């Protein structure tokens, strides 16, 4: 019962969505649309579940005074303040009927001056780490690594003004080797070919995995056989 019902749900929902593509008429067409909306709704419950789990984990950490527990208070406070500001649309010029991200609302200010700077700076830090990691990893040890390094270097130069300045003196007949042109060619021809090969490979993997899931061959998402929860 604990495993059969979920397997039946996956089978029915999966096949309904596949049939809806080939027979986009009642009842399959409507069912397919409904299932997609249901999916979006359940995904929001997953966000709520994530929030609940976050509070549980960090609440436990504070309660048991584990290492770095004061920072967990910061997490909980940040979560609660943004949640209240968002759920009640505090400071929204149009009240509850206004758009959630309306300028002037507390939620939007929290996004602009707390969430956005934190996110952008966190990701921009990766620029430094990628640079130092690539210095160690991309030393031209062999021909393949050299090709990767040269392609990356041309793309980096070609997308910045310095790439244009370096080769501006090239005659018209050699304009193909002008770094911005070369970067464009790499992006649109060899990169495209590689991307397509990867996409075809990924799609074969996704199709095979989808079939395994729908047919109940792949059951790892249900947990182990002996697992009670």
């Amino acid at each position: 019962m604990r495993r059969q019902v979920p397997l039946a749900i996956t089978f029915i929902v999966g096949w309904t969505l596949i049939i809806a593509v080939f027979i986009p008429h009642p009842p399959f067409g409507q069912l397919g649309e409904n299932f997609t909306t249901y999916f979006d709704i359940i995904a929001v419950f997953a966000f709520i579940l994530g929030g609940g789990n976050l509070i549980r984990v960090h609440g436990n950490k504070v309660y048991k005074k584990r290492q770095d527990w004061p920072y967990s208070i910061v997490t909980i406070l940040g979560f609660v303040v943004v949640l209240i500001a968002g759920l009640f649309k505090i400071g929204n010029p149009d009240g509850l009927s206004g758009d959630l991200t309306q300028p002037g609302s507390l939620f939007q200010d929290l996004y602009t001056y707390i969430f956005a700077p934190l996110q952008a700076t966190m990701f921009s830090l990766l620029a430094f780490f990628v640079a130092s990691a690539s210095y160690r990893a991309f030393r031209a040890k062999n021909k393949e690594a050299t090709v990767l390094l040269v392609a990356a270097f041309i793309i980096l130069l070609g997308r910045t003004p310095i790439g244009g300045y370096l080769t501006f003196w090239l005659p018209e007949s050699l304009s193909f080797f002008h770094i911005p042109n070369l970067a464009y060619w790499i992006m649109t021809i060899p990169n495209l070919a590689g991307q397509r090969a990867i996409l075809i490979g990924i799609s074969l993997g996704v199709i095979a995995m989808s079939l395994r899931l729908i047919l109940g061959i792949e059951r790892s998402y249900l947990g182990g056989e002996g697992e009670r929860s």
Partner: protein
Amino acid sequence: MGISGDIWVWIGAFLTFSIMSFLYKDNPFYKFAEHLFVGVSAAYWMCMGIWQTLVPNLIAKLHPPVVSEILPAASTKPAEYSYIIPLVLGIMFLMRLSPKGAWISRWALAFIVGTTAGSYLTRYLRSDFLGQIQYSIIPLISIEDGSFSFVGTISNIIIFLGVFCGLIYFFFSKEHKGTFGVASKVGIYILMITFGAGFGYTVMARISLLVGRMQFIFGDWLGIISR
């Protein structure tokens, strides 16, 4: 222009420096900002989901009068009780927080897995598998404006052979030796160019984010540069 007097801008600048301080080493400022980011982002996406999906697609469908002030147009429509299904599945999902009832969440998870598998199977088959093959079957000799195009021909040959050889590299059921091995080797070079281009683009994206933060610090906060 001068230094900003807006408390929000000061908070933004403080948090930017707190994250940046990790470049020196892990420290209390970074830990503070990191933990704040986790809490704020979880609540942010939760609120977005609730107001943009749950309210119009679930509450407004199940009991329209409730949203009469928020969504007047939706409140006049009749209730659709079939939406009890995602509500029940959603509540089942939340049961994962309960130690004894966690197994019930598998039903909701099964629905999500089924929907994803069902929609991805046809979508990937159509756009990423058949679509990409279709776009790669192109004339190898390129004629532009009635005359032979050398660059166009070379480009088309690279696209066709690049895709073909790239796929051969991914084919592991046959040993990569002889002609097959040569094609596989060409595939590796094409893939290396793709990874190089991807790496270059990733670095560019990160640097543009860094430039954005610098503009915030020197423009919005310190007022040294204009934006």
